[in-house]
């Protein structure tokens, strides 16, 4: 029933299924045809479904988004690939002012079942604009659903759910985990797994560690390392970034009393702030310490040789775990 796939392949099989199941599904993007995309996610799809269903487009992101919207008006369900996170900004207006608002503007008359696939995040040693984490911009934009996956099974299930959604979905793909392998059961019924729900990826009792996308693996590693230290860290994989499944996070924090959040995006105005603020609001009296955020810095994404510093890693996460536990940490400087 299940097979071992890389995360990228798991998305590819999801796209293939969607193309096969519904002839209103069309794929659009730069180099997604013959080349199969720069990450090969769409490999073989143009060959099998033809250039009418899997369309290489001119090199213009606003053009891609805007024509996708027109296709949605005509009853299509476009799945747009943005080649890299940093190339989404030319499409920002079409996404924020049109895609996100059309359903609201028309009081529900016009649906925008468009999925925007965005390989995102750093850790691949690339040059500028190839390692961005722009999810907060979109999560702050009403009318969009924003999701991200951390493993092949979710990747496969969620891409199908995203395409099935009648609302626009920003689908963020953790590019540095494209090659991570895992079991994928393609028969899992999508509808039983709401795309908007978080997942407790590891249970624990001392600290809640919230992560998503590429950092879920790092968070799980941190939890394992903490276990060696005798600490029990519960890892919550958000999956959905708009809405956020606060119920799941809240339940965990009510249990642990402590919250650490990690993401690659800049801290200032990032989703970590929303999670900290919302959870503080929901269970202030259960919190033993201020929520801690372990994030990218409030700088542009740095040169490749500096990204190990910019990106949250196991040590920085564990330092924050120590901090919310009132243990010695980098801020107390060992002088707790």
């Amino acid at each position, binding site marked *: 029933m299940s097979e071992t796939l890389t995360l990228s392949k798991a998305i590819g099989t999801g796209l293939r299924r969607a193309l096969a199941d519904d002839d209103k599904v*069309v794929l659009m993007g730069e180099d997604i045809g013959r080349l199969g995309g720069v990450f090969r996610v769409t490999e073989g799809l143009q060959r099998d479904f033809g250039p*009418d269903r899997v369309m290489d*487009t*001119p090199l*213009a992101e*606003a*053009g891609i*988004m*805007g*024509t*996708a*919207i*027109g*296709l*949605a*008006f*005509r*009853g*299509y369900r476009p799945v747009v690939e943005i080649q890299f996170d940093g190339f989404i900004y*030319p499409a920002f*207006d*079409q996404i924020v*002012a*049109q895609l996100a*608002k059309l*359903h*609201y*503007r*028309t*009081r*529900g*008359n*016009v*649906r925008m079942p468009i999925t925007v696939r965005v390989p995102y995040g750093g850790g691949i040693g690339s040059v500028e604009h190839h390692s961005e984490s722009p999810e907060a911009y979109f999560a702050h934009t*009403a*009318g969009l*659903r924003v999701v991200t996956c951390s493993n092949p099974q979710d990747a496969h299930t969620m891409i199908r759910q995203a395409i099935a*959604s*009648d*609302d626009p979905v920003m689908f963020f793909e953790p590019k540095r985990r494209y090659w991570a392998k895992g079991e994928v059961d393609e028969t899992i019924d999508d509808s039983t797994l709401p795309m*908007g729900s978080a997942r407790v990826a590891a249970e624990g009792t001392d600290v809640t560690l919230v992560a998503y996308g590429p950092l879920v693996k790092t968070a799980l590693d941190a939890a394992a390392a903490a276990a060696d230290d005798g600490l029990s860290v519960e890892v919550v994989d958000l999956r959905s970034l*708009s*809405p*956020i*499944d*606060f*119920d799941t996070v809240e339940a965990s924090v009510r249990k642990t009393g402590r919250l650490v959040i990690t993401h690659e995006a800049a801290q200032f105005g990032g989703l970590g702030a929303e999670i900290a603020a919302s959870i503080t609001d929901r269970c202030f009296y259960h919190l033993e310490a201020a929520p801690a955020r372990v994030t990218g810095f409030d700088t542009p994404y740095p040169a490749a040789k500096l990204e190990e510093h910019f990106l949250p890693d196991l040590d920085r996460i564990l330092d924050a775990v120590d901090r919310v536990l009132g243990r010695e940490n980098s801020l107390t400087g060992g002088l707790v």
Partner: protein
Amino acid sequence: MRSAISEQQSGSEENSLSEVFGPDEELIQILTPFGERVSQPLFDSWIDDVDSAALLALYEDMVVVRRIDTEATALQRQGELGLWAPLLGQEAAQIGSARALRSDDFVFTSYRENAVAYCRGVQLVDLVKVWRGVANSGWNPFEVNMATPAVIIGAQSLHATGYAMGCQKDGVDSVAVAYFGDGATSQGDVNEAMIFAASFHAPVIFFCQNNQWAISEPVGLQAVRPISDRSPGFGIPSLRVDGNDVLAVTATMRIALDRARTGGGPTFIEAVTYRMGPHTTSDDPTKYEDVDLHAQWAAKDPILRLERHLEATGVLDDAARASVKEKSDEVARGFRAACHTLDDPEPLAVFDHVYSAPHSGVDRQKRQYAAYLSYIEGGTR
């Protein structure tokens, strides 16, 4: 010497358009400002059927939409509407093009295309919902095959192109039309739309109303060449038409529609016209508009010239005149009355239709705000 009709489509396609050349700045014109209907061999066949009755119908349309404009402006002055964007002077461009469409064509416009909306069958009451502030848009696009206006300049040109790509995939001969202004042609979106349309050979018509102004900016700031000179370089033939001549507009639109329906791909039409009123009711053109220029264009008024023609040909007699007047009075009355029937939306409507399915974030806010409202109404605070 340049071509009023630029045709650079390469390949085997034979098209009569490429044969027409005219003097620089020449516009396709069939009805002169003096109301004379002149013959244009290349275009006449496209409007053979536009007889006196048809012309009278177009005249009525134009009078009616001008009356709607006047009424709406009055409603705005009386505080019934927050704003209005008059189309005064652009009646021929809009009526001529929109009346050429089939009901299964799909139209994407900006905010000034009230006459297009009228032709599509949009209820007038739906036209003012936005300006009265009771909704973010007025109608269900699928009932009239016209999207509600895009306020972001140029954005709709891409939607039309995508829609046309869809028609092509569906194997139907419906056409998508993007209406936009001269100012819009400076936006990246409009240029990208031409690129996509050309690459995919999409059945879309770019209908640019060059009304000489983008708010206070003259068209010369957006374009140092006629706007219709641009699309040929993208591989899209263009037609530059007298936008105040409802017959010429009809002919060019029919040509473009025919091209699109028969696999000829996109066409760009520049309808050269003039915005006789302010940009919107809150604009003050005296700050930037030259009075002489205004007067020049007033002499080319689209309704006036058709009136002259219909008078000269004896079509517009007293009875016809009365009937047109009655119709426009009636429309105006209905418009005003309908405007007053518009109720303010319910407070909680603010949360509706953000998504088509439940969204825990918005749903929670809605519950909390409902609680807040009843708490406030309870008078506690």
